[in-house]
């Protein structure tokens, strides 16, 4: 009987030890799994932030580069052209005095060419850096943009906003919205072969919505993304939005055409003044 009791005790202890091990294993699996997931998530977050930073830097340097080119165009070419215009004016006086008909007409032609070039350079400069946007805000910038487009194309572009006075937003956010609007409208003109474009700007306490609708051929964004048709435009919109936590959604309205809605959380302009227009001054290199 003695050995029987001992056997029982041994078995009991062994079973209890086994059970404790089982509990331990279950607890360990749960704990380890949870920890690994948290770690994974942290790494993901870091990676996401890093990517966002990269994108932000890339876009910032793109804007800086645009400014630099605009600046050079304005300062160098612009100045040269003004000087050229001045010299031509002087020359034209001489030519008029000499009284040669043919010389005079060539003179006139050169003068008007120079005038035109000056206008072009100014237009390109202003396209590169949306000065209106920085000075007067989104509404004015969009109005100016569509005004210019309507002149050159025979298109109807309508612009509505649900507020009279669109509150100024952070500089980056305004630029993002402006560039997205530009790309969407350009796409509609380039690809949709439409006759009418609608731009709607909405704002509430949390979100700004930008909707661009055309009545053209329409497209399926999923297909575009899958195939390698996706140009820089649509991708650029997405990466710009990723930086400001925005989203974009493409729709195909029943009556044809296509519609894109970008939504960005509001970020009112902070009190400090917008950055000076041309912060980038290139050191002159004399060769």
């Amino acid at each position: 009987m003695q050995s029987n009791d001992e056997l029982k005790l041994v078995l009991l202890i062994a079973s209890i030890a086994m059970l404790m091990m089982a509990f331990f294993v279950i607890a360990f699996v749960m704990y380890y799994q949870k920890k690994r997931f948290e770690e994974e998530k942290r790494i993901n977050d870091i990676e996401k932030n890093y990517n966002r930073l990269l994108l932000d830097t890339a876009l910032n340097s793109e804007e800086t580069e645009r400014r630099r080119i605009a600046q050079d165009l304005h300062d160098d070419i612009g100045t040269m052209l003004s000087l050229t215009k001045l010299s031509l004016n002087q020359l034209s006086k001489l030519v008029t005095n000499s009284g040669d008909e043919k010389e005079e007409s060539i003179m006139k032609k050169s003068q008007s060419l120079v005038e035109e070039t000056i206008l072009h350079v100014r237009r390109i400069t202003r396209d590169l850096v949306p000065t209106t946007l920085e000075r007067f805000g989104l509404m004015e910038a969009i109005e100016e943009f569509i005004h210019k487009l309507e002149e050159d194309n025979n298109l109807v572009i309508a612009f509505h906003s649900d507020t009279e006075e669109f509150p100024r937003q952070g500089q980056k956010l305004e630029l993002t919205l402006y560039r997205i609007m530009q790309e969407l409208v350009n796409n509609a003109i380039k690809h949709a072969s439409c006759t009418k474009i609608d731009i709607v700007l909405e704002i509430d306490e949390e979100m700004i919505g930008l909707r661009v609708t055309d009545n053209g051929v329409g497209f399926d964004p999923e297909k575009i993304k899958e195939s390698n048709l996706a140009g820089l435009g649509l991708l650029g919109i997405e990466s710009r939005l990723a930086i400001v936590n925005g989203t974009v959604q493409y729709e195909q309205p029943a009556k044809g055409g296509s519609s894109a809605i970008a939504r960005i959380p509001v970020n009112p302009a902070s009190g400090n003044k917008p950055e000076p227009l041309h912060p980038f001054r290139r050191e002159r290199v004399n060769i």
Partner: protein
Amino acid sequence: MLESYFSYIIRQPVISAPVFLNLLPILLIWRKRAYNDKLLLILFVYLLLKLGVDLVMFDLASHRKNNVVYYNVSIPIRYVLTSWMYYYEFDSKLHRRWVLASWPLFVAFSMWDAIHTNPLMSDIHNHNVVLYSATIESLLMLFWIMLYFYNTIRALKIPNLLSYPFFWICSGLLLYYSSFIFIAPVLHYAAKWDQWMDIGTLDYIPYVFESVSLILFSIGIAQYRDKSYAK
């Protein structure tokens, strides 16, 4: 007849409890239509079979007849069904093949074991509990369970274990087999019809953990979400 059941339940509440607790996961699977999931279908069949065997054993036990033969027969079936779930859950082809290979080996072994422990097959009255099969079964199952846990923490595919039914089922099985593994070899000596060896409370441990595992199964099944619902 009912009185004999009741008196048995009252005499052996711990042993009777899992028989009735079996109904809980079965009803849950039925109500949630969880049998649409292959894995839970196997569990469902396993639980039904277990309920059947348990009820027969219970009936015979309450009428004081030797019911061990059913128990012996149920061991290989039970092993095949439980390890089948692991066959589905393993991602690695190699591990699946191991599970498949274990079936004929184990069935053959348990048959040999039954014949070996009971030279006189016709003598049902003195039929003995198999000597090794239950232990081997526990060992194999513990191995599959540990292998599954190991794979799970390696692969990191399941974001929330607590809402994953098979994790609960696994935990239930782990507790049950851990409690059983040391008792199983003794049962052969303990549960002889004519010379009953009293191993006292020890005998109850597997029953208690059988109940615990059935409750864990039920919790797992409660986590089941119909995939067509989710869509």
